[in-house]
C-alpha cells in the first residue's frame, strides 16, 4: 500500500485514489488498463512513475488532465489536483481552472508535440495569454524571458522560427517553457527525455530540476529509465501492467527493493562502469520474474580472430545533397559520413557510438551501399571491394554482410507473414529448396527464442522486442559473416534489452560472426563490444579497445558522452550542473565546403584519438 502523507504534512498537490481507466475496444468491450492506482505528490516534491512500456504510465498522466477521449475511455476513482476534484469537473472548468494552471504537461515526443504551422513564439504567447490576458507586447516580452529561462540562445530572434527549425532538445525546452508559462503547481513530465540523446537528456534533466526548485513546483516524472529515476526522483512509484507494485523513497526503492519485479527491473539495468575490469563482453544476468532472483550472466567464450580483418572500411565519405526551393536545386550538402576508417575481425564486435544524427546509421548503410547520396572510399569484405562491384554481383555479395535495421517494425513488410519474410532472402539467393528454407526458418525462430508457430503471423502482431529478434533471425537466414546491428536494442524495455543483447552474444559465440554494433546507449555498448568507435558529426573522434575508451577516454566529446549518462544510483546524482546547451544540428555544409584534414594520435595500443 502506498503510504499516505502523515497528518500535518503539507497537503498534497495531487492525490489519486483508486484510479481506474478503461478503453473501449472492438465490439464495444471495455478493457481496463489501469487498475486502481493511488498515489500522492506533495508540493515541491518529485515523484517518479516507472514501469515498462505499456504499463499504463501515460494513460495515468493523461487521465489526470482529462485528456483522454471521453468517447472511448472511462475514468473512475478520485483525482484531486490542488483541491479540485478533476473527475467531476466539466470540460470548461478543466480548461479554466486546471489545465495549464494547476498542472502543466510535457510529452515524450518533442518532435511532434509542437504545432508545425505556428511559430514557436505564437505557441508560447498563446500559453501565456490563455490564462492571463495581457497586451501582445507584454506577452512577447514574457515569451522572450521564458525562452531565455529555458536557455535558448538568441531567444528574441528564434521566437519567430517554426518548430521544424529547432532540434529535438530545443523543442523540448520550448515545451518546458510553455508548461511553465502559467506557473503551474504541478508539472507532469511524461518521458520528456526518452526521445533525446544522452547528452541532451542530461541538459534537459538538469534544467527541469533547476526550474522545479526555482518555481517550487511539484513534479510527476514518468519514465522507464531507472537511471533517470535515480537522478530525479524523491519518491518512486513502480508500475506493472496497470498496478502499483512498489512505492517509496527513491533510495529505498533502489537499495532495498521489495517487489520481485522491481528487483528484476533493477538487475537488468545496464549500469555504466559495471564492466570495469571485465576483459570480454558479458551477458546480462538472467532474472526470474517471479522471485526476482538473478543468475549472473556468462562472459563471451569466443575470442576475436585478430589475424586478418574481415571487413575493412577506408576513407568512407557519404554526402547528401540538400535541395531547396521549388526548383529542388542543390543548395547545400549534408556531410553525414566523413573519412571514416576502421576494421572488424571475425568474431569481433565493434561498437559505433555517438549522438543522434552523427552519421552512425549512414555509415552502416554506406558499407552495404544502401545509403543513397554519394559515397566514396573503400569497403573490403575479405578480398572483395564492395564499392566497385556491379549491381548484380553486389546483390549476391549482400548475403555476406547483413544489416539489422534501426526500426524493426518499419523494416518488415506489413503484408508479408514472418515466414514469408524469412524464407524470401534464402530463396532469392538460391541457398536451397523451399523446404530447406522453411526448416531453417523454424530453427532460427527457436534460436532467437520465438515459437515457430509464429511464422504465420504478421509483423504487427509482435512486440517490439520480438520484432527485433525477427530481424536478427531474418539476417541470420543468409549465414552472413558480418552483421551491422543498428540501434538494435535502444528502443526496448530494459528486460527485453537484456534478452536481445544476450541473444546477440550467443550467436556470436556460436557462429563467430562479426558485429558492427551501432548505438547511442553507452551502457549497453560497454557490455557487448570488443572495441568502440566514437562518432561526432560524421567523423570518428576516438576508436580503440573497449576498456581503453571507456576508462581512459581521451577526446572531450567522448568524455562528455560518458558523463552524460544517468547512473541508476540515487547516491551518485551528478546532474545538477549548469551546462551550456549544445544544439545538435545536421552537419549541413555549403556546397563549396572543404573538410579539414584530420590526424589521429595513438593513445594506447589500438587506441586512436582525433587531434583537434
Amino acid at each position, binding site marked *: 500500500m502506498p503510504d499516505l502523507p502523515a497528518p500535518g504534512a503539507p497537503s498534497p498537490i495531487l492525490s489519486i485514489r483508486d484510479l481506474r481507466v478503461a478503453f473501449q475496444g*472492438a*465490439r464495444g468491450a471495455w478493457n481496463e488498463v489501469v487498475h486502481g492506482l493511488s498515489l500522492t505528490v506533495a508540493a515541491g516534491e518529485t515523484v517518479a512513475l516507472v514501469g515498462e512500456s505499456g504499463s499504463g504510465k501515460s494513460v495515468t498522466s493523461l487521465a489526470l488532465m482529462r485528456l483522454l477521449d471521453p468517447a472511448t475511455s472511462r475514468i473512475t476513482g478520485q483525482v484531486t489536483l490542488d483541491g479540485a476534484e478533476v473527475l467531476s469537473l466539466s470540460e470548461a472548468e478543466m480548461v479554466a481552472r486546471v489545465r495549464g494552471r494547476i498542472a502543466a504537461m510535457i510529452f515524450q515526443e518533442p518532435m511532434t508535440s509542437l504545432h508545425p504551422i505556428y511559430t514557436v513564439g505564437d505557441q508560447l504567447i498563446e500559453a501565456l495569454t490563455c490564462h492571463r490576458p495581457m497586451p501582445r507586447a507584454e506577452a512577447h516580452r514574457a515569451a522572450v524571458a521564458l525562452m531565455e529561462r529555458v536557455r535558448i540562445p538568441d531567444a528574441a530572434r528564434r521566437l519567430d522560427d517554426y518548430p521544424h527549425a529547432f532540434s529535438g532538445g530545443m523543442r523540448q525546452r520550448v515545451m518546458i517553457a510553455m508548461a511553465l508559462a502559467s506557473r503551474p503547481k504541478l508539472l507532469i513530465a511524461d518521458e520528456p527525455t526518452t526521445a533525446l540523446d544522452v547528452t541532451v537528456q542530461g541538459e534537459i534533466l538538469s534544467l527541469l530540476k533547476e526550474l522545479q526548485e526555482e518555481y517550487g513546483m511539484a513534479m510527476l516524472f514518468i519514465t522507464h529509465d531507472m537511471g533517470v529515476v535515480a537522478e530525479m526522483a524523491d519518491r518512486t512509484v513502480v508500475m506493472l501492467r496497470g498496478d502499483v507494485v512498489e512505492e517509496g523513497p527513491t533510495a529505498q526503492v533502489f537499495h532495498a527493493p521489495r517487489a520481485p519485479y522491481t528487483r528484476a527491473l533493477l538487475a537488468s539495468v545496464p549500469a555504466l562502469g559495471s564492466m570495469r575490469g571485465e576483459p570480454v563482453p558479458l551477458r546480462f544476468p538472467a532474472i526470474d520474474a517471479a522471485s526476482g532472483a538473478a543468475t549472473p550472466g556468462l562472459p563471451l567464450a569466443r575470442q576475436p580472430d585478430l589475424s586478418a580483418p574481415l571487413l575493412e572500411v577506408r576513407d568512407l565519405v557519404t554526402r547528401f545533397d540538400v535541395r531547396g526551393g521549388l526548383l529542388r536545386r542543390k543548395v547545400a550538402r549534408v556531410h553525414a559520413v566523413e573519412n571514416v576508417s576502421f576494421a572488424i575481425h571475425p568474431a569481433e564486435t565493434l561498437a559505433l557510438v555517438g549522438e543522434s544524427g552523427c552519421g552512425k546509421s549512414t555509415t552502416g*548503410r554506406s558499407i*552495404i551501399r*544502401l545509403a543513397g547520396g554519394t559515397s566514396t572510399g573503400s569497403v573490403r569484405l575479405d578480398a572483395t571491394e564492395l564499392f566497385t562491384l556491379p549491381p548484380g554481383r553486389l*546483390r*549476391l*555479395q*549482400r*548475403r555476406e554482410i*547483413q*544489416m539489422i*535495421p*534501426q*526500426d524493426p517494425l*518499419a*523494416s*518488415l*513488410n*506489413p*503484408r*508479408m*507473414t514472418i515466414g514469408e519474410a524469412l524464407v*524470401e*532472402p534464402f530463396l*532469392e*539467393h538460391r541457398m536451397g529448396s523451399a523446404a530447406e528454407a522453411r526448416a531453417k526458418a523454424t530453427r532460427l525462430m527457436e534460436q532467437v527464442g520465438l515459437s515457430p*508457430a*509464429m511464422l*504465420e*503471423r*504478421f509483423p504487427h*502482431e509482435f512486440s517490439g522486442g520480438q520484432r527485433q529478434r525477427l*530481424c536478427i533471425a*531474418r*539476417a541470420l537466414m*543468409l549465414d552472413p559473416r558480418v552483421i551491422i546491428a543498428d540501434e538494435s536494442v535502444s528502443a526496448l524495455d530494459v528486460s527485453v534489452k537484456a534478452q536481445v543483447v544476450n541473444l546477440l552474444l550467443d550467436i556470436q559465440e556460436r557462429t563467430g560472426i562479426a558485429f558492427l554494433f551501432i548505438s547511442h546507449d553507452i551502457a549497453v555498448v560497454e557490455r557487448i563490444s570488443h572495441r568502440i568507435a566514437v562518432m561526432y558529426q560524421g567523423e570518428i573522434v576516438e576508436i580503440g579497445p573497449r576498456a581503453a575508451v571507456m576508462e581512459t577516454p581521451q577526446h572531450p566529446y567522448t568524455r562528455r558522452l560518458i558523463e552524460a549518462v544517468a547512473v541508476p544510483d540515487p547516491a551518485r546524482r551528478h546532474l545538477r550542473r549548469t551546462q551550456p546547451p549544445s544544439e545538435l544540428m545536421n552537419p549541413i555544409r555549403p556546397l563549396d565546403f572543404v573538410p579539414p584534414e584530420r590526424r589521429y594520435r595513438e593513445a594506447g595500443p589500438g587506441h586512436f584519438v582525433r587531434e583537434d
Partner: protein
Amino acid sequence: MPPPAGPWRRALQGLASSRTAVLSGLGLVLIVLATVLAPVYAKHVAQTDPFRSGLSAKIMIDGKRSPVMERSTEGLGLGVTPIGPTWGAKYFLGADSQGRDVAARLLYGGQNSLIIAGAATLLCLVCAAVIGIVAGYAGGRVDTVLSNLIDMIWAFPVYLLAISLSIVMLGKTFEIGPIHISSSSLVVPIIIIGLVYVPYVARPVRGRVIAITNSDFVLAARGLGIRPSRILWRHILPNVATTLIVFAPMLMALNIVTESSLSFLSVGVQAPNASWGTILQDGQALLYSRPVVSMAPGIAIMVTVMLLNLFGDVLRDILDPKSVRGR
C-alpha cells in the same frame, strides 16, 4: 492461442462488426440483385419488353383500356404524354417517351450502369496503378514524363474523346483477338470513363509508391539482396493495393455519376439499351410532364452512390485510417 488473423481477415472482421458497413453492403447487394433480376421483373411482373417501343401500346386501368401514350385532347390538342406512374405491376413508374416501362428499364439500366462503373473503376485502378507505380518507382525522367501525362489527362476534355471515339467506333466492329468491340458495346463508355479519373488515383499512388520505395522495409529487402523486380512485385504492389482498394468505392460512385453525365451528353450507352444515365436523359425530355422518369434514376444513382460512400468510409477506416482524405 487464438489463430493469428491476417490483415485481410481483420478487414473482413472489421467490416462485419460495423453496422454501417453491413447495412450499406446489404443495400448494395440488394441493388445488384434487383438489377440482375431485371429480366424476371420485366417478363413476369411488368410483362413488357423494355427494349421495344410501345408507342401504340394500350393498358387496362380500372377496367378501361387506355393508350400508354396519351394524346392531349384539351386546348390545341398538342403533345403526347406517356402514362404516369400506375403504382401497379405494369408501368409501375409509368412509361418513357417511347412508351416503355420505366421501372423495368430502371432495373435493366442499373445493370449497365453498374457494369460500366464497375469495369471503368477496375480499368482506372489498373491504369493508375501502372502509371503511379512506374512513375514512383522509376523516378527521374520517366516520372517527369508520366507526371506530365497525368496533367494532360486531367486537363483534357473527356467529352472530346467521348464524342470522337463514339463516332470512330460507329457501326464498326473491332476485333482484337477474341474480343469484339462494337460501337454499341459498353466498352466505349467504359474506356472513356475509366480514363477520366486516372490522374485522381495515379497521383496518390505515385506518392505512396515513392514513400514505400524509400521505406525501411524496401531498404531492408534490398539489403537482403532481393531482386528489384521481386521488390516491385512482392513489396511495393501489395502495399499500394490498400490505397487502391480504398479508392474503389469512391471511384465507383464517381463513375456512376460520370456515366450519367456522358449519357446526358448522349455519348454512352446507345438506345435501345438503357443505363441510369440514359433514362435520366430520356427523363429530361419529360421533366415537366412526367418528372418521375428522371427522378427514378436520379434517386437510384443517389442511393447507390450513398451506399458506396458509406461502405467506402468504413473500408477506409478499417484499412487505413490515415490515408486518403475526403474524396
